[in-house]
């Protein structure tokens, strides 16, 4: 194997610039996409000013909930600074909480619990206010429940549990029995939670770039198989088909290493979430792509016609995948379409075995197909 690796290295180093470009393109494209996406998301966040007379536990809980909203940027500022920023439209709106906030919540007192300031340019004041009010409402309901439980215990002359325990239990029940999950659904994609929606988009980018870069890298098969020097391979210790398939395996190895690096960068460097099953799906997709592209190269003898053919295949696959154009209508009428499309399983983070098995089967058929002549260029 080392000797085969050496021969591949001899070829690759002659065109290392283009090879490295295409090899690393999925990594860079994914990383750049995430960076740009995060940047745009940050830019699109609605700046909201929070004025707290005193930092109390319940207020802390409320502001934590606000910070967790993906489209709100929370700024802790003084009253005067808030008004100044609001006048200069540096914040969309301002919420001012009194020092007695916790007291008011615990006694279910809703009066003067929060002041909301807006300007004539406040674009998202109303939806942000609705979100904040819903968080306050949660806290009020929890306190109300704790007071009710306390009264119930006192009615029966029992020692009531601590209010914090009641609230905690209430939170746990809220989590486990959540009726509405915040989901977004776009054409061709199933609903996904906010956390995973970003990585699905990165996956789309990764899929497209992997497909295209693999096709470009595998131009070597067309070039080498049809080169006069390849006619010498039958007179070596390797059958031409055995030689070329082992070179394909070397490429698969290189691609998998780069993919591991890509996903490590995305997970550890860019805070993306990739589950183990998604990782396996990606690696399977990479192997399927390599084998599929390799089979495609066998149909061509000239570099130009291969590149043209590869581009057409690439455009058709991406165009029919639902990535750009909606295909829900097609899937509704032909449910098999989704399971037969080579990119569909990967787009949903699923392991697509159908095309992997098909391409492996075709490679085996090619490998063991008898030739009319002994040493035909494979």
């Amino acid at each position, binding site marked *: 194997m080392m000797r085969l690796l050496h021969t591949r290295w001899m070829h690759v180093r002659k065109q290392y610039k283009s090879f490295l470009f295409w090899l690393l393109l999925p990594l860079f494209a994914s990383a750049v996409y995430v960076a740009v996406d995060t940047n745009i998301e940050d830019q699109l966040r609605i700046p909201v000013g929070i004025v707290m007379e005193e930092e109390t536990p319940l207020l802390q809980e409320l502001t934590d909930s606000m910070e967790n909203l993906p489209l709100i940027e929370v700024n802790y500022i003084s009253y005067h600074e808030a008004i100044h920023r609001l006048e200069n439209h540096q914040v969309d709106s301002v919420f001012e909480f009194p020092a007695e906030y916790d007291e008011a919540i615990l006694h279910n007192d809703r009066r003067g619990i929060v002041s909301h300031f807006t300007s004539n340019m406040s674009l998202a004041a109303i939806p942000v206010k609705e979100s904040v009010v819903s968080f306050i409402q949660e806290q009020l309901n929890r306190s109300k429940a704790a007071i009710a439980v306390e009264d119930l215990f006192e009615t029966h002359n029992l020692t009531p549990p601590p209010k914090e325990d009641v609230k905690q239990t209430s939170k746990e029940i809220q989590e486990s029995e959540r009726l509405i999950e915040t989901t977004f659904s776009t054409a061709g994609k199933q609903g996904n939670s906010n956390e995973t929606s970003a990585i699905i988009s990165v996956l789309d980018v990764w899929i497209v770039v992997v497909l295209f870069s693999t096709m470009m890298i595998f131009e070597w098969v067309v070039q080498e198989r049809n080169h006069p*020097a390849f006619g010498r*391979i039958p*007179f070596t210790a390797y059958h031409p088909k055995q030689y070329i398939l082992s070179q394909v395996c070397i490429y698969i190895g290189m691609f998998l290493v780069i993919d591991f690096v890509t996903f490590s960068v995305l997970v550890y460097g860019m805070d993306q979430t990739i589950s183990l099953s998604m990782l396996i799906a990606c690696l399977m997709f990479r192997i399927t792509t390599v084998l599929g592209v390799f089979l495609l190269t066998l149909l061509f003898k000239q570099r130009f016609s291969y590149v043209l053919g590869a581009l057409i295949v690439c455009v058709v696959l991406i165009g029919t995948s639902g990535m750009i154009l909606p295909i829900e209508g097609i899937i509704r009428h032909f449910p098999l379409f989704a399971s037969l499309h080579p990119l569909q399983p990967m787009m949903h983070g699923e392991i697509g075995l159908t095309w992997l098995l098909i391409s492996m089967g075709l490679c085996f058929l090619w490998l063991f197909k008898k030739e009319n002549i002994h040493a035909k260029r494979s």
Partner: protein
Amino acid sequence: MLNVRDLSKNYGEKHVLHKINFHIHKGEIVGLVGENGAGKSTLLHILATIEKQSSGHFSIDEEPDSKPANIRKKIGFVPQEVALWEDFTVKENMTFFEKLSWKRRSIDELKKLCEAMHLDAWNTKVRALSGGMKRKLNMAISLIHDPPILFLDEPTVGIDLKSKKEIADYLTHIATTKDKTILYISHDMDEITSMCTRVISIGDDPFYDDILTAEGMDVTTLSKNDE
């Protein structure tokens, strides 16, 4: 060394070779001549296991084993075209095919093999080599695994006289000192008469036979229409 018995090759209705028989001894340099389309290259391709014969058989070293992979270990095939990686240097081409070869050869051995053919542009890229140099490298690669028998399909076509002579001298040298058996296709009668010990003529046209016989060569004629 090489024994050919009743070898025939048909492409559909067309008979290219018909029941050919001949024998080549160890250390012989045998010229294979004939007009274009007579079947010289087809015969060489069959013996090199690139193509399959329609009928008949051949053996090398009296071994009946006809598995192509086993036959290829024993032969060095020099194709008519220059089959080299143009972006590689001489050294890289030699190393590349050594890595794939049955026989391990050191860089020194590979270099000496090239030098023996007066191919001394070790670190020059193939695309910068002269036609003669390319032909020499084309041949040197076929000798990496030190095969006992060598098939050459017009290995000196289109090159200068000096390179032709150097190639001929080298082939004569390895045939006499290393007992290599050589089957050599050429249209150059001077080359054939100066280098070959014997000639096999394919085809029905007596043109080559007459010239070579007049030069005192031992000519075996293999007619395509022999029954």
